[in-house]
């Protein structure tokens, strides 16, 4: 699997993502600078976390107009798997590839801690190897990760089974106390209707090595690998 990790000015999760991807067999991963214009040779595209363009204007708003984003739009339309982590999720929302937006954490705190997320469905290339209802232990690190969408958008996310991750308790319950940032319905990650674009605030790439306290992020990348190696393309 050939992976591209996009690099915007201000990205800071790019090297972590590269390291995590390269820890898997049969994977090559390279950084792609935001001024590049093509992503055609890649099976998988990752938009990493960080503070692209200093979060000026709104998080992800300026990165959305980087030259590489035309190629991301094209890849998304052709069914290539695209994963946006943290700031990458914000960029995908700003680009209109995912619905809704991410606003300031309701408690105004920058949350940098480990959290449990419940996998809501295994019906996606990103969660296909995870049973629905499983809990993953993943780190979060964000000040603007409160997922917000209008009522009708939330309803559509339900109807199309697009919510992949929710912040949960150790018993798998979705409670106010298990919500670190005030996200609507404890949403931690969503996919698009075609299910080939996934954005999440937690950092699976920082949970791929025992040394870092959790390896629960690996199963997300294993799902992606499995999907790509099985030759499945998301139907359009």
């Amino acid at each position, binding site marked *: 699997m050939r992976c591209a990790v996009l690099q915007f000015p201000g990205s800071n999760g790019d090297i972590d993502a590269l390291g995590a991807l390269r820890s898997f067999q049969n994977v090559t991963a390279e950084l792609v600078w935001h001024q590049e214009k093509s992503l055609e040779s890649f099976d998988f595209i990752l938009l990493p976390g960080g503070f692209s363009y200093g979060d000026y*204007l*709104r998080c992800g*708003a300026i990165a959305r*107009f980087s030259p590489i984003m035309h190629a991301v739009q094209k890849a998304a339309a052709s069914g290539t798997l695209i994963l946006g982590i943290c700031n990458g999720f914000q960029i995908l*929302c*700003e680009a209109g590839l995912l619905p*809704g*937006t991410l*606003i*300031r*954490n*309701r*408690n*105004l705190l920058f949350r940098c801690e480990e959290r449990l997320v419940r996998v809501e469905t295994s019906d996606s290339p990103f969660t296909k190897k995870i049973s629905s209802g499983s809990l993953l232990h993943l780190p979060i690190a964000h000040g603007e990760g*409160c997922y*917000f*969408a*209008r009522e009708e958008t939330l309803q559509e996310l339900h109807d199309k089974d697009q919510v992949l991750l929710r912040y949960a308790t150790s018993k798998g319950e979705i409670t106010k106390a298990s919500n670190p940032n*005030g996200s609507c319905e404890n949403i931690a990650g969503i996919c698009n209707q075609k299910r080939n674009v996934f954005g999440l605030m937690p950092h699976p790439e920082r949970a791929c090595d025992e040394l870092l306290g959790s390896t629960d992020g690996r199963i997300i990348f294993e799902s992606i690998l499995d999907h790509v190696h099985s030759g499945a393309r998301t139907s359009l």
Partner: protein
Amino acid sequence: MKVRITIMPQAAVLDPAGVATAHALEHMGLHGVRSVRIGKSIELDIEGVTEEELHQACRELLSNPVMEDYRLEILS
């Protein structure tokens, strides 16, 4: 042409910075604050564009219609 764009969070969107500032105003001794909403103001000096192009810039870059409303004023 000088243009000012005022961007405000929509009423349905929680503005935690506004809520925190309302509390601070109370603590400062200014009582009776019903609500505080914090937005931003952008001033442009620009030539050779139509008003519709400016509105497009507001919709696509300067504001996010999912959570914000904007007001465009041509100053001179």
